[in-house]
């Protein structure tokens, strides 16, 4: 996997075509709009001013909040991996009783997130929460406000953001060649040694990718600190949002965003370096599918079972409460006084009988589906090339594609407006503002970094000898891509598409600036119905929309996974794919874990 000279890369027509399209896209939609908005921000009158830096670095609050964001990012990178790997092993690697049920519980983070998730945890562990009330009865000396600050934020965000582990790490795990495990066992390795020396190393590319995502989630944390952070643990994102909205302070927002962005890119660079040089696929001639392992030590077995079910309770309780509370009136939600008598369908009737009706749902579904498909479809080629060719050109492209991680989406949207509110040669002289296309472009661009990371990780676990064999037998580049590579990364691609789709469904930050007035997506309607964020109906509506989104995202996951399983069974009959196929392959066919259908991802808690 060493570097490939740029010159040899330029010899392939496939590379040239993809490269040309990519160059145009990056120039037109990633670089130009953001350069424009940054120039307008930092050089308001044509002169650069160091004002922003000076203001920020002399503000105690800004520095503390920034520090908190970094602390959270680093801590989350560790805790999410611990919990995430544990639940993946429990559901996919070890033989655990009821792993199907456990899976469903752990998968609940797929379908919801954000402020409602944080509120759900507060219903349980907050000062008036169910668990807290119980605990206070048992230990009267206990502080009812125990669940707040850094600890509470870290706990909630850890459990809320294991989605990527459940999807991608589990996927990679299923691809591991069972023969290597058997071989290790025959050589006398213990369960623990096999895990540490055989299984986890194979998962590295995926673990690196999800670690970057956890880091990023921590840096961008918004709602969990707002709800649970209290006075001592506030993060930087609320300040960035306030400053983005104020034209005279936008330079501060941009500077803060750039600081976070640079940190993310550094993290990316470190992870890329760690990833380099490893071999992450099975090299055996005939690989076989993973079988679940029993934990032989009875004490360890009992302990793992206990922890697994405890985590199950932690994961499921908030969801149950959110669904229940969505039937209560807004005052009851906020004061925490719930009686079975005041649960009615009123909230749902109010939300669903609005004049706008189902239209915003349809608009959002169409936009999100298109954006998710385009992002994944387009980046399949790009990720493949970036993974295959490693030289300075591909490195530059890769970093440029991460621009959307650097700037907050409101600034991305403003950049698109000021760049395309007049005929612009970059897009063939068209005016994009006021059209329905501009929002689609924005949706696609914001999903690029995530899509690219996960796709690249999944290509990294494909055994390159398959491709070489096909090429030797005369297969053309596109044929190899379509018949060999694509089926192998398809499970990951489907999961990414579903996650992208779900996270775009309720987007507000981008849509508010770019949506066509006659084609308004759901995020705007949700905002109109929940704003003030407070109020009585507003809060109840927030819960109703959350539950409705859970339904949509749940159905999406079912469709994606249900269908991929079908394809999996037909796939086996297809000629051309070696039955011994590799790592990511077995995932497709009848997955050993039956609960999988219900899986669905949603926006992480940010």
């Amino acid at each position, binding site marked *: 996997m060493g570097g490939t000279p740029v010159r040899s890369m330029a010899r392939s027509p496939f590379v040239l075509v993809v490269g040309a399209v990519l160059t145009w896209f990056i120039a037109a939609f990633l670089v130009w709009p953001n350069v424009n908005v940054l120039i307008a921000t930092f050089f308001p009158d044509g002169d650069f001013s160091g004002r922003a830096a000076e203001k920020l670095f002399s503000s105690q609050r800004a520095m503390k909040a920034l520090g908190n964001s970094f602390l959270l990012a680093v801590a989350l990178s560790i805790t999410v991996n611990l919990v995430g790997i544990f639940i993946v092993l429990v559901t996919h690697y070890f033989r655990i009783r009821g792993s199907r049920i456990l899976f469903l519980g752990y998968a609940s983070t797929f379908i919801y997130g954000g402020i409602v998730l944080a509120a759900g945890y507060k219903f349980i562990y907050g000062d008036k929460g169910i668990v807290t009330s119980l605990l206070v009865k048992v230990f009267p000396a206990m502080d009812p406000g125990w669940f707040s600050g850094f600890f509470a934020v870290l706990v909630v965000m850890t459990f809320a953001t294991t989605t990527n582990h459940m999807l991608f790490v589990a996927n990679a795990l299923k691809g591991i060649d069972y023969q290597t495990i058997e071989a290790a066992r025959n050589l006398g390795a213990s369960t623990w040694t096999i895990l540490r020396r055989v299984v986890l190393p194979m998962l590295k590319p995926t673990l690196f990718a999800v670690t970057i995502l956890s880091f990023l989630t921590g840096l961008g944390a918004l709602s969990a600190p707002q709800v649970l952070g209290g006075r001592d643990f506030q993060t930087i994102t*609320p300040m960035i949002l306030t400053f983005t909205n104020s*034209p005279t302070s936008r330079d501060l927002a941009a500077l803060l965003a750039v600081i976070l962005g640079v940190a993310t890119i550094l993290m990316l660079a470190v992870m890329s370096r760690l990833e380099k040089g490893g071999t992450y696929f099975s090299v055996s001639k005939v690989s076989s599918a993973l079988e679940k392992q029993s934990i032989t030590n009875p004490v360890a077995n009992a302990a793992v079972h206990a922890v697994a079910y405890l985590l199950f309770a932690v994961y499921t309780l908030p969801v149950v409460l959110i669904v229940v509370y969505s039937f209560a009136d807004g005052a009851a939600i906020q004061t925490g006084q719930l009686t079975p008598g005041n649960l009615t369908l009123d909230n749902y009737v109010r939300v669903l009988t609005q004049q706008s009706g189902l239209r915003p749902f349809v608009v959002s579904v169409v936009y999100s589906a298109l954006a998710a498909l385009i992002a994944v479809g387009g980046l399949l080629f790009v990720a493949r090339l970036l993974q295959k060719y490693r030289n300075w050109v591909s490195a530059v492209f890769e970093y440029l594609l991460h621009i959307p991680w650097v700037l907050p989406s409101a600034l991305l949207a403003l950049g698109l407006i000021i760049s395309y509110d007049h005929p612009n040669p970059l897009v063939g002289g068209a005016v994009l503002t006021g059209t329905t296309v501009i929002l689609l472009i924005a949706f696609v661009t914001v999903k690029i970094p995530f899509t690219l990371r996960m796709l690249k990780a999944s290509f990294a676990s494909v055994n390159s000898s398959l491709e070489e064999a096909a090429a030797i037998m005369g297969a053309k580049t596109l044929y190899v891509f379509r018949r060999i590579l694509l089926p192998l990364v398809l499970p990951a691609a489907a999961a990414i598409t579903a996650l992208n789709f779900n996270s775009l469904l309720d987007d507000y930050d981008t849509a508010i600036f770019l949506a066509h007035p*006659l084609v308004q997506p759901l995020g705007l309607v949700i905002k109109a119905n929940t704003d003030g964020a407070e109020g009585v109906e507003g809060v109840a509506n927030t819960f109703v929309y959350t539950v409705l989104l859970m339904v949509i995202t749940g159905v999406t996951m079912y469709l994606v996974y249900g269908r991929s399983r079908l394809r999996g069974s037909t796939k086996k009959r297809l000629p051309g794919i070696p039955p011994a196929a590799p790592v990511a392959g077995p995932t497709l066919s009848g997955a050993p874990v039956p609960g999988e259908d219900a899986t669905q991802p949603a926006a992480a808690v940010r």
Partner: protein
Amino acid sequence: MRKLQTLVAAAVAVTLLAGCGGGTATPAASGDASSAPAGGSGETLVVYTNSNGEGRGEWLTTKAAEAGFKIEIVGAGGADATNKLIAEKNNPIADVAFGLNNMYFSQITAEGALEPYEPAWAGEVDKELGDGETYWPLVKQAILLGYNSDKFAKDAAPQDWTDLWTKDEFKARYERVTGLGTATAQLVFAGILSRYRDDSGDLGISDEGWKQVEQYFQNGSPAVAKTDLFARIASGEVDMGQMPSSIIAEREKSFKVNVETVIPSVGVPLAVEQVALVKGTKKKEQAQKFIDWFGSAQVQGEFAQQFNSMPVNKSAEAKANAEVVDFFADLKQQDIDWEFVQENMGAWVEKIELEYMT
């Protein structure tokens, strides 16, 4: 194969989306100014507002349709709507904007995104409440300090904002904001800081004034996300805080609390929601007619009746809720130099966020 299908499906869908956008009312895509009303959509007016919540947007759309106006409401928070109007000024999408207060509208006017227009009802409103040229007043809203009247008798209650942090009995009993993004919070600070105007002070405010801000943040109980002030009053966490006049009656009922409001001797800040014509609209005539209709005594009266608001249009008062009208009749308005406030608000918010919020 599947990939190909996906791509084709995507391409078809994009075309459909683009088609429906271009065909109906894409003001930008149709290039030339004539902009023939395509399809059956007629002249749909695009109306930006932050005042569409709690059913107001739907009510207005229905009423406007009855009067022969086809409108499409685009709702956004005050700051978002302002930023959007300014960002789009080279190629506007909106035709009319309403609901934003004078601070926001003077910002948009300064950016040159609005077109002066004198509505037919200009004579029925107090011109002082708008700028008398570009944006015109519709609804008055008082920004008040409210307290739990079951806990505090009138004479034991605070008499002014400054009491909250100077008198020990109110410390930690009032809710303070955790961000200055909302119009209400900004108006509270406009009301407090205006009293300490000092052209030699930092950002036009004396040191004494900034000390008040510092005290406000040090002694208040921080607001809790997604938990309404009234919910916190109901549970006894706090007893008082900022509130716009229009929400009080309904929240008292929902949370079963009684709230009285403080009228400081300097008066209370008024937020006045305005309406204006967007510069560069391609449906100018229709938009002007809409403004004439919307601000008329008839429509404003019905709006006030429906949403318990206080109309600026004098002839509309008769239809408004009598209690609301009485409240405003007795209300002393704080004298605030809005031009001064608008010029400095951005910098004030920044300073407060960076230096005083803890």
